[in-house]
């Protein structure tokens, strides 16, 4: 797991999991799996933008693109380039 995966996974755990025992990994479906509701994505988007100094347009911040930590990493890397 690279640094970005660790940072984002850690953020998702702290931000969205109510039960500390609940285990998720970089491929766990977050939105389609009911862990993150589409409303709550806004804080994740803001976190990514602040952390990586990027701007993600709303049309790119789709539930599909945010569904797993791995997909989020792919999206963020596209904007860092």
């Amino acid at each position, binding site marked *: 797991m690279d640094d970005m995966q660790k940072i984002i996974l850690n953020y998702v755990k702290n931000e969205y999991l*109510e039960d500390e025992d609940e285990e998720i990994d970089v491929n766990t479906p977050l939105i389609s799996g*009911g862990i993150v*509701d589409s*409303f*709550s994505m*806004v*804080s994740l988007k*803001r976190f990514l933008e602040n952390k990586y100094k990027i701007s993600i347009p709303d049309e790119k911040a789709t539930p599909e693109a945010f569904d797993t930590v791995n997909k989020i990493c792919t999206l963020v890397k596209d904007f860092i380039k």
Partner: protein
Amino acid sequence: MAYSTTMRTGYQQEIHDIKNSGLFKEERFIHAPQAADIEVEYPSGSSLKKVINMCANNYLGLSSHPDVIKAAHEGLDHRGYGMSSVRFICGTQDIHRELEQKMTDFLGTEDTILFPSCMDANAGVFEAILNEQDVMISDRLVHASIIDGIRLCKAQHDTFKHSNMEHLEEKLQLHSDKRRKVIITDGVFSMDGDTAQLDEMVALAEKYDALVFVDDSHATGFIGKTGRGTHEKYNVVGKIDIITTTFGKALGGASGGCVSGRKEIVELCRQRARPYLFSNTVAPVIISGITKVLELLSKSTERRDKLEQNAAYWRTGLTDAGFILKEGDTPIVPVMLFNAKLAQDVSRDLYAEGIYAVGFFFPVVPKGQARIRTQISAGHDRHHLDKALDAFKKVGKKHNILGKTKQEMIDMYGL
């Protein structure tokens, strides 16, 4: 014909899928006024069964109170049946404005505007007072109608973990660049029966220059020493900027809702809130009934006091019997069963014992948190509660869940 066979079978399949997933909702026909004792036809076509109602929002037992019915009759006689208009064309009578003033006085706010329902109040208020420059920060367990209102508003939306004030503070800091920030919560959470910590929220709102919005539908009339609501319980009367509430629960249970709060916010709702502008005025007969309810509640706290005693008695009885309850001190008392099928089975068995209490499971509550939600009323007498307790004990024993821990119940029935 546009409604083709393909169209019909498509919809039939969707209904079939709802049934297959165990989420199909069936209405039960009540052949009586709303009360603690009712007669129910269920399933459809079966003979009537007398049951004790443990799932109505009739918290104060006023839904069929003779004084309320009499006042409604008088309203019908003196102000007619319908107004055939929205409020701002020719749908506002003297009694509408009187009721708005009475609600303002009752809630301790600056002004009030009536809506056809609290669902409509919640659907209309955010869009009327916020835009793209603003942010709405809501508790993750707020009612569905608030979520719909949020969806209709262009302001940004974020959430905080249920009743987690540290998380709320983080969010207020995160969105400190926004023009207006609104903290959004239920006063009493309808599925869990716990209350929002409004004193702490008000303190945070003052620190971060935010507004506080509270939907007090499951509180108005009985929470707080004189029943004014959750803001009274937490000693912040006059400090909540926006309260929405319903007349469809404790306050007579017919229909209607309102936005009450800062006068400029109420005025903007009058100018811009779409459910107010584009739906009919609340019927005079309903207004007259609600006005009588407020009169009764302003005279005496006897009903909310009885409700509080009933709820405490019920909680103690269930806890002593060995059930796991969601903690709280409101008349919403959820009996935790965790497994969805178990919740359905217990509800069915209770009904056979003459107790009407409904099971709730995903998606209404989170997965693995299925429950029977019981709701206590001032219309319940001790004999109702004792009979219901006996039935719960009998059914609990049958399913071998009395005195069991959450883990033991999960081991037996799964999540």
